[in-house]
């Protein structure tokens, strides 16, 4: 590999790589992201490579293990070019068929095609899949084209051209103006205008400045950052380089949570490669700009996603947030000016510099520009990563992309923004994905997690779940968060246990407002949001729990009883053997009975029963 000493070297290498790839006839792109790894995609990739070797095709057919495509439930999956044929749920045994039938003879294998759950029909090409069609895949489309461990792949799709433009055709002031004009706002949850953050940091006094990439994605149900960092680490690096140039930083850090080992590995490889090519280090591409990046692992703490806690963790200390009376752009890491941005924010930067601020601002709403990656999960037919233009309505996302309810149940709400966000009912589904619109409605875009809930979800239980999560993750330093969240959880548990009183609602509301106003950091300040939004939009569920001691969704254990309908029970004994507590008794071929004293209402028996004989009251 050659060290690139000038911008011309970079372009020459790029052209060379692109020319080399002209002769490739066929490319098989398989997703190698964490989700597909869980579905054993490595076995499939190995089998495909074997099959190609057996047929002597390993030189003319490229196999690429790309980053996450976002369609995780369909994995292991593959896209074949030319032809754009899309195969899913591939097993290693299918490899031979794929090579001999599709690659060699152009014959499509029906059993491997995607079946659209809404229409019931098979779809042949990736471009025709409704899930993808409804999206605007600016960032995710690059995941499809590059192997995250190959800097050459990144160069061949135009990588680092934005860096060269920045270093040799722009000043730092120009770069910041471009980011400001684009309207890019932080993608990690805060939604703070990125251009203004960079400007404040650049103007802060001091020679030692830092840039940090926050890849501590702790929101449960959100994995956008994982797929971007894991699937296209060079894109993130390039964004950081441009940012560092703009604010005058010479050192950067990527802080990745430990629970993403593949992202850590790919980021490390990318940094190593960039250093080898001279894209990190002294006098990059022959300019005056020197910059290097280190990868740091999180220790397992959601609170370290908060910027001051993350910086404390980088300093080798416990991840306890610090008061932000002076902002981190002035006093951040080691109390020096620091620009901390989310993975997705950094990933948007090279596109903005290359295509211009106007291109970015052409998408989205007045105050929320560009596209946003969302992690769409929950009770809908199509789950996965979804990238849409800001301003797309929740309804389009849930029904148009998500395909509507699964299991025929009615959709009740969508939870956005993770534990810092709120639940919005169906009546609000015409709201756009927009920072301000969702905030005003009592939720937030947050990092992009979107969990769809149906009538089998109890909204009081959802609030309780998030409070438990936040209580678990609170650092415990300040009184409102440590004691306030605890007392809110105590009150809500009382409600779900059937001990709720009407005055508890007012107390819960007042306590939630106090915690929101007085907590030291963002974790505490947003902790009451799930409670506040469910109180606002689902008061009837709280009322049912308190006044009628009833859980309408049949979830809250103390308020429900499990019983077996003797008429439907065939005495097969499946439930008996499945019960982890031995609470079911019965003879073969005779109706079984649940002992209410032993029953913990886990619901395992109901899942096992083939005749729907288990009833929940």
């Amino acid at each position: 590999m050659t060290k690139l000493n000038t911008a011309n070297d970079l372009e020459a290498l790029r052209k060379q790589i692109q020319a080399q790839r002209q002769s490739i006839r066929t490319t098989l792109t398989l997703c190698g992201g964490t989700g597909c790894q869980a579905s054993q995609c490595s076995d499939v990739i190995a089998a495909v490579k074997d099959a190609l070797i057996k047929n002597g095709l390993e030189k003319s057919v490229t196999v690429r293990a790309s980053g996450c495509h976002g369609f995780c439930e369909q994995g292991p999956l593959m896209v074949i070019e030319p032809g754009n044929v899309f195969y899913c749920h591939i097993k290693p045994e299918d490899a031979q068929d794929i090579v001999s039938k599709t690659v060699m003879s152009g014959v499509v294998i029906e059993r491997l095609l995607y079946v659209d759950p809404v229409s019931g029909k098979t779809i042949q090409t990736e471009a025709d899949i409704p899930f993808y069609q409804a999206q605007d895949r600016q960032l995710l489309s690059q995941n499809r084209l590059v192997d995250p461990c190959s800097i050459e792949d990144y160069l061949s799709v135009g990588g680092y051209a934005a860096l060269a433009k920045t270093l040799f055709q722009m000043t730092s002031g120009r770069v910041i103006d471009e980011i400001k004009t684009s309207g890019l706002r932080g993608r990690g949850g805060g939604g703070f205008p990125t251009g203004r953050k960079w400007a404040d940091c650049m103007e802060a006094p001091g020679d030692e400045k830092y840039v940090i990439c926050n890849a501590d994605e702790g929101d449960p149900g959100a994995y956008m950052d994982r797929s971007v960092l894991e699937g296209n680490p060079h894109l993130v690096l390039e964004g950081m380089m441009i940012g560092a140039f703009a604010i005058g930083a010479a050192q950067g850090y990527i802080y990745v949570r430990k629970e993403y080992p593949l992202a850590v590995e790919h980021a490390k490889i990318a940094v190593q490669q960039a250093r080898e090519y001279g894209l990190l280090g002294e006098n990059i591409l022959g300019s005056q700009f020197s910059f290097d990046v280190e990868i740091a692992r999180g220790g397992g703490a959601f609170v370290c996603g908060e910027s001051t806690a993350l910086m404390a963790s980088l300093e080798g200390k416990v991840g306890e947030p610090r008061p932000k009376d002076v902002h981190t752009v002035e006093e951040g890491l080691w109390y020096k000016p620091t620009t901390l941005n989310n993975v997705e924010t950094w990933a948007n930067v090279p596109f903005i510099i290359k295509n211009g601020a106007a291109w970015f601002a052409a998408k989205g709403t007045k105050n929320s520009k560009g596209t946003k990656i969302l992690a769409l999960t929950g009770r809908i037919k199509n789950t996965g990563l979804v990238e849409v233009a800001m301003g797309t309505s929740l309804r389009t996302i849930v029904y148009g992309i998500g395909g509507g309810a699964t299991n025929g149940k009615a959709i009740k709400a969508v939870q956005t923004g993770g534990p810092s966000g709120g639940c919005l009912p169906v009546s609000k589904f015409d709201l756009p994905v927009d920072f301000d619109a969702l905030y005003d409605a009592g939720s937030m875009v947050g990092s992009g997690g979107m969990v769809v809930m149906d009538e089998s979800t109890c909204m009081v239980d959802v609030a309780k779940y998030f409070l438990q999560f936040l209580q678990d993750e609170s650092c415990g330093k300040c009184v409102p968060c440590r004691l306030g969240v605890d007392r809110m959880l105590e009150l809500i548990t009382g409600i779900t246990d059937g001990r709720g009183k009407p005055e508890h609602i007012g107390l819960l509301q007042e306590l939630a407002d106090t915690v929101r106003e007085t907590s030291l950091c963002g974790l505490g300040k947003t902790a009451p949001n799930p409670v506040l939004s469910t109180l606002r939009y689902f008061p009837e569920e709280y009322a049912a729990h308190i006044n009628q001691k009833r859980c309408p969704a049949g979830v809250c254990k103390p308020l429900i009883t499990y019983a077996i309908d003797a008429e439907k029970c065939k005495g097969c004994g499946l439930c008996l053997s499945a019960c982890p507590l031995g609470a079911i008794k019965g003879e073969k071929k005779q109706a079984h009975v649940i002992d209410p004293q032993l029953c913990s209402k886990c619901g395992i028996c109901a899942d096992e029963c083939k005749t729907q004989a288990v009833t929940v009251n």
Partner: protein
Amino acid sequence: MSPTTLDSILQGRRSQPQQLVEVLQDVQESFGYVPEDAMRTVSKDLGVPLMEVYRVANFYKAFSLKPRGKHVITICTGTACHVRGAHQLLDQVHGQLGIQPGATTEDGFFTVERVNCLGACALGPVVVHNGNYHHHKTPNKLRKLIDSVRSTSKEEGQL
């Protein structure tokens, strides 16, 4: 505990207090937990007060101050997995092994942990066994997994 392993972990990092979290991560990976002697050595060699080392080791979930079992079963309780019934997996494992998350069985064989989201949400409920990801786990499948781990180890004479 091998002094040479600790030595290699501290190599190139001595007198650098900011490396504390990374050093402890390596200690956890090498020894399966963070032993007391290791904390004293790290405190001395990195130049970090013992109180701080102890604080960091207690703060982050990655670190365990007690040895973990041979087989670590991690159940994801993130939102997407929760909505798909992850709590049933907790009930299952409690019934089958008799322990709550964070604890180890008396024979030192199984440790059960909870994690708040692994980023594989579309495939939930997710269970990780010693670094291997399992998806769409139901209580039944989990029961079978635990049983098979037990019987394989019996065959290999580990139990």
